[in-house]
């Protein structure tokens, strides 16, 4: 009885907290502020949605936005950041990218006394990083794969973007979890996903690997830290008629989610993130900070595990807009 009461009280205060945050967010204003947004590229669903989420929300709050898309070119992004620092905006949001390349420049931003906010980038120089809980995503998906494999067999992994912090976390979690199953082997050398031409390259690579690892080889799963290679892998497996090999990914791009909803497709599960919400939250964090409100160093935005079993129920918000 008492426990029930406590639970009710907790729920009520949680709702109150959420409403309070929402009303705070409505009152937040960035009028007269200039905010820079820098992103290495927007050629993928996730990148574009997160980028749009930031820009839309910043503009809604009245900010002037300097939005910079480097077109997947590290040198362009470094040039853009250098010019951006000279423009002295009130804050800068940096989204994704190679941390080895960016970190000295992110430090320059801090050295210039411009508050830095990041999306999916862990760096000591940022006030706040808005992201999915990639530790949770990584281990949940890994456990799911181990379960589907029955605890034994081979996993083929794409690991071309270990220098992107979120990919590192997800990959490390996968390795950690799989290390607990003595019957599971991660195939080495790993495949390297590329950008651009990710899907085509993944299709070709997986086709070759299916030849190398035949039906009796014990190959059961393909993993990647996002879901572009997963799309190519799914197509390759279908074409080779090797549907016993299942495909997993992270992000929740509409085309891959659609594959999961198809009962005959080897696409099994995706940890679907809410990139637009992530971008929006990063913008709200900037506004809170500039309005003198306290913010935590990390903001987690929830994600959803969409699987073959629950797709009918959960996939609809992630499917292609028709």
């Amino acid at each position, binding site marked *: 009885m008492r426990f029930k009461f406590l639970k009710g009280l907790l729920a009520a205060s949680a709702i109150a907290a959420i409403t309070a945050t929402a009303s705070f967010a409505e009152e937040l204003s960035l009028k007269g502020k200039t905010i820079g947004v820098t992103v290495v590229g927007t050629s993928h669903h996730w990148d574009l949605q997160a980028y749009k989420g930031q820009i839309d929300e910043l503009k809604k709050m009245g900010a002037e936005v300097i939005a910079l898309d480097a077109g997947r070119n590290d*040198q362009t992004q470094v040039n853009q950041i*250098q010019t951006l620092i*000279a423009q002295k905006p009130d804050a800068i949001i940096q989204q994704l990218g190679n941390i080895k*390349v960016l970190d000295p420049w992110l430090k320059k931003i801090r050295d210039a006394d411009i508050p830095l906010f990041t999306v999916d980038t862990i760096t000591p120089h940022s006030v706040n990083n808005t992201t999915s809980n990639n530790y949770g995503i990584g281990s949940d998906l890994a456990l799911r794969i181990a379960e589907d494999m029955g605890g034994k067999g081979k996993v083929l992994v794409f690991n071309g973007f270990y220098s992107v912090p979120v990919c590192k976390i997800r990959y490390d979690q996968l390795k950690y979890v799989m290390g607990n199953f003595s019957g599971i082997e991660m195939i080495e050398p790993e495949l390297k996903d590329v950008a651009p031409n990710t899907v085509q390259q993944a299709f070709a690579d997986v086709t070759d690997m299916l030849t190398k690892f035949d039906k009796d080889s014990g190959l059961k799963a393909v993993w990647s830290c996002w879901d572009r290679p997963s799309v190519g892998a799914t197509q390759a497996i279908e074409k080779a008629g090797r549907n016993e090999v299942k495909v997993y990914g992270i992000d929740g791009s509409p085309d891959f989610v659609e594959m999961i909803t198809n009962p005959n497709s080897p696409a099994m599960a995706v940890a679907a993130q809410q990139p637009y919400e992530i971008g929006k939250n990063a913008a709200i964090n900037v506004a809170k900070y500039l309005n003198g409100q306290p913010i935590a160093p990390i903001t987690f935005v929830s994600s959803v595990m969409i699987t073959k079993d629950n797709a009918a129920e959960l996939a609809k918000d992630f499917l292609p807009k028709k």
Partner: protein
Amino acid sequence: MDTTVSDTKSSIDRRALAAVFVRLGAFAALGIILLYFAIYARGFTSSFNLQNVVEQSVILTILAYGMTVVFIGTGTDVQKGGIDLAVAANAGLSGAVFVTLLNLGWPEPLAVLAAIFTGMAMGFLNGLAVVVFRMIPLLATLAVMNIASGLELTITENNVIGVSSEFLSTLQFGRFLGISALAWVLIVFTIFVAFLMHYSPFGVRLYAVGGFPEAARAAGLNVGRNIYFSYIFSGFCAGFTSILIVSRLSASTLGTGLLLLPVLAAALLGTVFSRRFVPTIGGTLIASLFVGFLANGFQLLGVSSYWVSGVQGALILLVVALTSFAKKSEGA
């Protein structure tokens, strides 16, 4: 008879006038665009920003020097002569070699030499394909470009390979007499190449070979050797630039090949800023800085970055059209 002569003369006058018009027009357009940025783009003329643009243009400029030397030595007519489409990819490969060797524990000077040697070796391959196999430069260097980017992928396995050292961070953020290290590199390199091309007997010979290969051959110059030199020098520029790229990005990353379009734009645009529409080091320097100012000005004005590469492509078209038109005028 008299009327024909005067007709021809007046048409030559008119064409020469048109050529002057194109050249002056180019300078005027450059001036107007810079003036526009100075008035409307906040912070454009601040010394901090101007230095930024120079720093951002160093890599582009030195690669464009490589392309310019290829233009000079293999045919000053940029449409029919030589071209080095591999120069940017070559820089990417040299950077990958540089970083990999550093991470293997090689001493820095040796790794630097190895990177430059890699660039020159790819340049030699270009020369071989053009001189010995008599391939069209466009196709030959396209093939070498693919070899370079393939090798880069093989070495790096498509990874971003980080590297850090005192030397590299000095190049990245160091300053001397109030001028950044990168800007110093540009100044010294420009003086060196300008002297080599415009004030040494060697440069005169290279222009002769590129401008009139038959006449040069008749005069006893070794045309093939000069073409080899052009491509190997371009490779040297690529290798040299790779060190700057690695210092700026603290890593070797794929995507250096994407510099090809701006490099081409700068080297071609450079010809417009010379007296006879021939490639010159000064012209290329002005053009590279212009390409840099364009990207910078657009960002300061809040024009979408998506426009920049489109404008670069349009510039190439415009320049090639204008120079071929102006050349016809001068040749008549």
